[in-house]
């Protein structure tokens, strides 16, 4: 392809390539440009030697510097852990009753709890902690087992209806229909009465028949006015919040053969500090309660190890 010649119009040499009479003029590149090009090649070779580069069958070449993306991540994580260590230590030492007094620590606990919640709790309680049928909403002001920081922490540590944890929150509502304690008619009457407690239905003969049955069978746990009892996790029947639905059929079904929620005891799965942070987060969702009576010197164990 050496058909070089001098182009007359421009007085420039051609590079010698020709396609159907079309030729290319040779406008030389600056020499330093060529050197920078060689430099990039040298850089690329050095880079391939220094860093992981070539994929092989089992794994890639490792590079002289021994750098890996996983290693870098591990370094960054340990730096972040070190930065968090003091906060975790302070969290481990503070009794949870005293947490609200330290607003900085409380804020740190809430944000740590938010992260832990996303990993451990959203499966049942939902991303916004709003729950669903059978899974309590943690944003509202109704608490089955108590909504102050200590009660929430206790629920987290021991779980609800967990076998193997002797201190777990436990209660069992009798299956009034299934076990023949009440007839279907009686269950209907009790349902009517329960609906009047929150004003969902007017008084009726069925409801007053149900009132007698309620007094005989239900007040032990749910209270005289259906206000519930936290010791047994018995829900308040006189408010607007219904874990298993507020329809007549849903209430009747719950009296007939009740569903019971379960929650894992997290003490074996999460460290005490994370549980404390989760309690703080759940408490911060808007329905957290103050302690009913604040002890002058709360005699609670302090988790020593973070």
């Amino acid at each position: 392809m050496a058909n070089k010649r001098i182009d007359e119009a421009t007085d420039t040499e051609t590079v010698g390539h020709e396609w159907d009479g079309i030729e290319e003029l040779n406008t030389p590149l600056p020499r330093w440009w060529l050197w920078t090009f060689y430099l990039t090649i040298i850089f690329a070779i050095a880079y391939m030697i220094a860093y992981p580069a070539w994929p092989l069958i089992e794994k890639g070449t490792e590079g002289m510097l021994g750098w890996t993306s996983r290693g870098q991540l591990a370094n960054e994580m340990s730096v972040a852990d070190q930065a968090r260590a003091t906060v975790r230590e302070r969290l481990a030492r503070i009794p949870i009753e005293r947490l609200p007094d330290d607003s900085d620590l409380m804020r740190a606990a809430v944000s740590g709890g938010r992260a832990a919640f996303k990993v451990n709790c959203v499966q049942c309680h939902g991303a916004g902690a709003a729950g669903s049928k059978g899974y309590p909403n943690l944003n509202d002001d109704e608490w089955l087992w108590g909504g102050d920081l200590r009660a929430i922490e206790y629920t987290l540590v021991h779980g609800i209806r967990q076998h193997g944890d002797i201190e777990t929150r436990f209660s069992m509502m009798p299956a009034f229909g299934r076990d023949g304690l009440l007839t279907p008619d009686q269950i209907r009457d009790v349902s009517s009465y329960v609906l009047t407690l929150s004003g969902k239905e007017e008084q009726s003969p069925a409801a007053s028949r149900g009132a007698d049955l309620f007094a005989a069978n239900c007040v032990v746990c749910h209270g005289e006015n259906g206000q519930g009892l936290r010791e047994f996790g018995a829900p308040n029947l006189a408010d607007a919040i219904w874990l298993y639905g507020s329809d007549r059929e849903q209430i009747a079904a719950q009296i007939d053969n009740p569903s019971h929620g379960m929650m894992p005891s997290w003490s074996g799965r999460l460290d005490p500090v994370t549980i404390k942070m989760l309690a703080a987060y759940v408490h911060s969702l808007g329905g957290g309660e103050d302690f009913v009576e604040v002890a002058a010197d709360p005699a609670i164990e302090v988790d020593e190890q973070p």
Partner: protein
Amino acid sequence: MNNPDQTLVKDGVEKSVDPVSSAVAVPEAATRRHEPGEPARVHLPEKLYEKRKAVHNKRIDGPFRRFKWAVMVLTLAIYYVTPWLRWDRGPYAPDQAVLIDLANRRFYMFDIEIWPHEFYFVAGLLIMAGIGLFLVTSAVGRAWCGYACPQTVWTDVFQHVDRFVDGDRNARMRLDKAPWGPSKIARRAFKWSIYLLISFATGGAWILYFADAPTLFREFFALEAAPVAYATVAVLTATTFTLGGFMREQVCIYMCPWPRVQTAMLDEKSLIVTYKDWRGEPRGSVKKAEKNPGKFGDCIDCLQCVAVCPTGIDIREGPQIGCITCALCIDACDRVMKETGRPRGLIDYATLEDCEREAAGEEPKPAWKTILHPRTVVYFSVWAIIGLALLFALGTRSRTDLTVAPDRNPPFMLMSDGSVRNAYTLKLRNMQTRPRRMAIELVGLDGATMWSEEIPMDKASRRIVRNVPSDSTETVRAYVMAPPDTPEQEFHFRLRALDEAGETDLGETRFEAPGDE
């Protein structure tokens, strides 16, 4: 096989019978089309790459050179003095007049403080700078390239260093050709240390825009500054040293996109530095012209225009990408014309259109017409409209800002007494450089109350008061509770600064409620 320029090949042994270049030897063969099947013609020497030809521009004095000096002093003064200017903003903000505070994401420029969400001011300024370049180009050609571009200014500085150390053009050319010896090494070492010093001053001044200048200046030399400061200075020193000291016109010709854009923007109506060939050609020395009056043009072929050119081009070849229109050749040519008693302006700022007019003996267009053509007016209008819009936005912007983000998961909450609760994340921006007390109030949504993390639910009211620190954003999580059966609706939060000015901002949002199922 009867081509006269053909190469004889027998068993690959015999070489061409032609001289080195067929183009030289057989001119008609060079221009004749190469026939398929025809053996290769003789090799011309390989020349795909070209060594840089050093530019040793000669010293020149004249009006344009003096203007260039003035622009250089002005631009360098702006660059070096600006970080040291102070501006009082009170105790809560830095007192540096121009400061790009990357760590805190604030940009200070005299009385203006820009937050990241107001970056459109910077974008607007950049657009104005771009259109400003177009405007200048359409009015006076490549004036930016010739006088104000940092590459031009620093190249000029380094060329003066060359002249100071090694002498003028001829001395420098001699030294360039001289073999390396002790004196040349000493001279080069001396010159390059001055290069390095200038480069260091260039890179060093840059970082002063990004932190408190006096503090950083002390920390830098006490080796206490951040590593990024040293890295930045090192990189900028290296680039200034290379680009200003050695690459020079190569940056304009090969690296910078702007000259390429200019070739598309210039036309016969654009002001450029032009050699008036109709007046200059044919060239002939003064002596020849005296012998043969009327035969030669005004150009005496003294090559002074080439000697003074900082990019090493010959302007007499016509407009070209290497010409930055610095007009030093005009100064040089005007002086020669004066000495030879001919009218000035053989090389001059002119449009190609005017050149044709002059060649035809007509009057050139008046200067204002050259500058004020429709394109210039359009560019100026666009430029001015953006500028006015920015000024208007600057004058009317509020230094108090509220943004409202309602919780979407869950959108609403039913409380045990049947009330409906929504949660909102409010961001209160206090963009003034002093702490302020601010109140958030509910507007609309009758019967609703709100509380937040610090205020317990039983102290809920329609107003939350917060102290917002100077120049910062405060996040408030507000729980708004409305009585049972409140329908979903639009409402507002109002942020009010509790001071004399009482700036307010409204944040529109929505209250969600259970619908009819």
